[in-house]
Every structure is written in C-alpha cells, then in structure tokens.
C-alpha cells in the first residue's frame, strides 16, 4: 500500500494532486462529475476584493500542445465567495482548500487575506502575484523581487494561515524572486503561472485575443515549469507546489522529483474534466514502479546523488 499523503507548511493532503486555480472554478462543475474528496486539495478561482467581469471576447486561443487564455481574473468578488461559494464548497469537498487571492494593491491583498481568516476550510492562501492578464500600474507585483517582497510582507502580517506566493515565469530570474518571498516570511511557493504569449488571426490580421496577449498553459509549458521548480528548489527551503503542463501521473512525478511537494493540474482539467481523477488513480502503480512507499520521498529526488 503506497502512502500518497504529502505535508506542506503543516497542512497534510491525502495526495499531492491539486486542481489549479482558474481551471476548477469553485468546484461546482466538477462536483457534478466525480467525488471531489479524492483530491488532495483544490485551488479556487483567483478572487479579488471586488467582483470583476473579466476581459472582452475572445479570451481563448489554441496553440501547439496548449492554449492561451486572457480571462482577466473574472470572479464574483471576495464577499460573494464567502457568502455563496464557501458554504457550497463545505458540501462538495471535505479536505483542505487552497484560496487563490488576487489584488491590485498591497492593501487589497492584505484585506482579502484578512477576510479569509475565519474560513475554517481554507488552509493555505495562494497569493497570486503573477496573473499575466491584468496589470497593476503596468506590471505584476511578481515581476520583481522588491514588489514580490512587499506583497509577502503585507499578507504575512494580515493572516495566521500559511501563505504561498504564486510566481510567474515571465521574469528574468525566478529564483531571486523566490528568495525575496522567503526572506519576508512566506510559508511556501506555487509555480508557475502561465507564460505570456499571443496569436494573430490571419482572417483579420489582428491579434486573436481581444486582450492582445494571453497566458500559455498546457503540456507546452511543462518543461519550462519543471526547470523553474528545479531552480527554485535549489534556491529556497520553502515547500513548492509545482504547476504547469502536468497531465499525467508521470509528469506529476517529474514535478515532484524536481522539487515539488504537491502538484497542481491546470489546463488538463479543461481538455479532460476527469484528468485529476485519472492521475490520482494512476499514482499508486507509478510509485510501485518507481520503488517508493511514500510519494513524498519523490520530492527533490532528482537533486540528490
């Protein structure tokens, strides 16, 4: 019997598989399809203080082995999530929830975290400082170490819950940003967000997405995500949630070997709504093949020996 449980920042997940923010809503659509209690956790849709309608259409484009999205953090706002989604989540999922928290100012990040303080089921705050589709004063907080540190500081004093900063790949040196978050008291990191990209519509000869650019996800980004998890694992001591292009038990295991303690599955859920279920069912056999009794032994394994 393989032990699939993992622990990060004191929070134990029954397995390392976590649907990634923005691909799983607040769980409602998937609860119609399978029992969500098989999941290690899930990371809810990035939530801002005020409701956001998101970007104009079109927001979706395809690319080789992946897709671009420019949804632009459409969400009902933190109050509506606390009022309508959180009680529903308690009915459809009984494990620890990861709350993806977004903001356009340090104050907004801090306030959103404070508002979640009494939400018992929310065990980890995933502070999104790397959405490529919205811009606070022309850039993301996650795009340089100083602003990443400032957000970490702001949320660290606003909550007692574990804080994981969600970092993006559209930077020169992700390890430097990871170190800046660690120095300000982050409990963990989640990486990566989507890669900034674009497509052009040959019929109109204009950018296909109304937002012009969007975030690339899917199997195309997996090697990039894996390399960044590898680099950040070498740079910090914090637990890492690896995210980017994972679509199978095998790619999840690679992510853990590169240094991830848990693994988020994103775009794969959109192509196959049962993707996380299949991955979780495949993990025990894979662990046996890899000769590990505890899946947590995989974490960072590729760095040793």
């Amino acid at each position, binding site marked *: 019997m393989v032990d699939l449980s993992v622990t990060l920042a004191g929070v134990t997940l029954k397995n390392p598989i976590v649907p990634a923010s923005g691909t799983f809503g607040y769980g409602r659509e998937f609860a119609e*399809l399978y029992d969500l209690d098989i999941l290690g956790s899930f990371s809810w849709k990035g939530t801002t203080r005020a409701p956001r309608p998101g970007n104009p259409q079109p927001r979706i484009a395809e690319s080789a082995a992946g897709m671009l999205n420019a949804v632009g953090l459409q969400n009902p706002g933190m109050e509506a999530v606390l009022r309508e989604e959180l009680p529903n989540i308690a009915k459809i999922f009984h494990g620890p929830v990861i709350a993806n928290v977004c903001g356009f100012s340090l104050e907004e990040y801090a306030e959103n975290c404070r508002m979640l303080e009494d939400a018992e089921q929310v065990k980890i705050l995933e502070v999104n400082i790397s959405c490529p589709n919205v811009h606070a004063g022309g850039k993301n907080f996650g795009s340089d170490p100083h602003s990443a540190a400032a957000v970490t500081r702001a949320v660290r004093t606003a909550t007692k819950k574990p804080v994981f900063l969600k970092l993006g790949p559209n930077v020169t040196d992700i390890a430097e940003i990871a170190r800046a978050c660690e120095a300000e008291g982050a409990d963990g990191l989640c990486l990566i967000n989507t890669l900034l990209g674009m497509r052009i519509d040959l019929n109109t000869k204009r950018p296909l997405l109304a937002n012009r650019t969007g975030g690339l996800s899917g199997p195309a980004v997996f090697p990039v995500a894996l390399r960044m998890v590898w680099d950040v694992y070498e740079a910090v001591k914090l637990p890492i949630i690896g995210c980017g292009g994972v679509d199978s038990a095998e790619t999840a295991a690679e992510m853990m070997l590169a240094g991830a303690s848990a693994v988020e599955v994103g775009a794969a859920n959109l192509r196959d709504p049962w993707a996380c279920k299949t991955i979780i069912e495949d993990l025990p056999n894979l662990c046996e093949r890899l000769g590990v009794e505890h899946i947590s032994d995989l974490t960072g394994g590729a760095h040793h020996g």
Partner: protein
Amino acid sequence: MTKSAFTLEQARQLTGDVWELTLAGDTSAVTAPGQFVNLELPGKFLRRPISVCDWDEGRLLLLVKEAGAGTRQLVRLPAGTELDTLSGLGNGFDLSAVPENAVLTGGGIGIAPLYGLAKRMIAAGRRPRAVLGFRSKADAFYREEFAALGLEVHIATEDGSLGTRGFVTDVLKTLPEGQYVLACGPTPMLKAVHALPQLSGGQFSFEARMACGFGACVGCTIQTKQGPRRVCKDGPVFQKEDIVW
C-alpha cells in the same frame, strides 16, 4: 455531461466549406435542441465545440463549417475514426415558453441546431416557420431537409442568387408584427435580429471560442443583464430580454 467515444460513420460535403457528419455513439446526454458536443481531435489540445443538428438513440448529426485547422481536420477524418466526445453540453432552446408559430431564424452554419429544433417542434404539433440566410445560392444547404419537415421555409441570400436578396432581417420585416424568434447565426445577424422592433420575444444561441465547454474556465463569458454568463454552461441559448451587445 458525459464523456464517451463516438465513431465517425460518414462525412458528406454540402457546400464548398460545410459538411454533414454522422457519428454513432451514446446520445443519452443530449436532451434539448441547441445543445452541443465537444470533440477531441488527434493532435489538438483543445476540443472543438459543435452544435448538435439532430440526434436519435444512437446517432448524432453535426453540421460543420471549415473555419480553421481543427474543423478542416475534423471533416476529413476517415470513416471509422473514434472521437473522444463530451456530450450534452449547454442548455438548449426552452420550448416551454415558445408560442406555437415561432420563427426559426438562422444564418449560415447557425441553421444547424434549428433543424433538430424544427423537427421536435413539429412532432409536438407546433407550426414553426424558418427563415434561413446564406451568402449566396452556392453557400445554401439543408433547404430540402427543412422543407421535408413540412414547414414554410424562406431563404435570403446576400447576393440575391436565391430567395430574397438581403439578410434574414429583410424577410422578418415582411412578417406580421409580434414574431417570436429562435435564432442562431453569426453575431452581426443575431444583433440585427435582436434589434427588430416588431419582435414579441425570442431566444438567441451564441457562439464563442471555448476552452472547456462545461463552465470551468469561464473563457467564453459574455455580459448579460443578469451579470456575466458563460456561453457554454449558462447558454449557448439566451433569452432576448437578458442580452446586451
């Protein structure tokens, strides 16, 4: 929604860029005209959402317009190809609120769901009529199929090579006031039909670029009078009074 394999039985070319596909499989999740399926294609990351034209216990009929690399590939797949399919997606047309002489209004490939809709309305004893718009006679398809259902069919073509010269709105304007429309077609057509002052009401089926097709990614959201709504999960059919352009 279910996920199952459908087998492509036949692809029949109807015009220069429109094809009729017949697929065999479990159609039990399809419950209303106007719903769609999301087909996985070999080598493509995203599925392709295609409106259901008609269905019976074991077969799906789809009309597909070649619009890009995915649909070009889809219509040329060899018979016998198995397609991983999410079926029964979206809310179709709500027939409970429709007056018995509603006007089915379609433009181009948008006429696809109106065929299955017409068939079911007629089976239920209603007397709809159809107004179908095409670019030209060469682009027209499914005229005989609609006519064979036994309903009155008006055709409009932009160049006048068949039926009324102009758009579906030019035909609708000649009909008595107070028409209720069931519409599907390109956005400019939907917008023009929606703006006609003589309508008593209607339902409009929207098209959008989608990633998941089942409500998870909110990629296809449009703004409505009820707030943001997902074309895939809350639509694709929306009530006239809820639509904002």
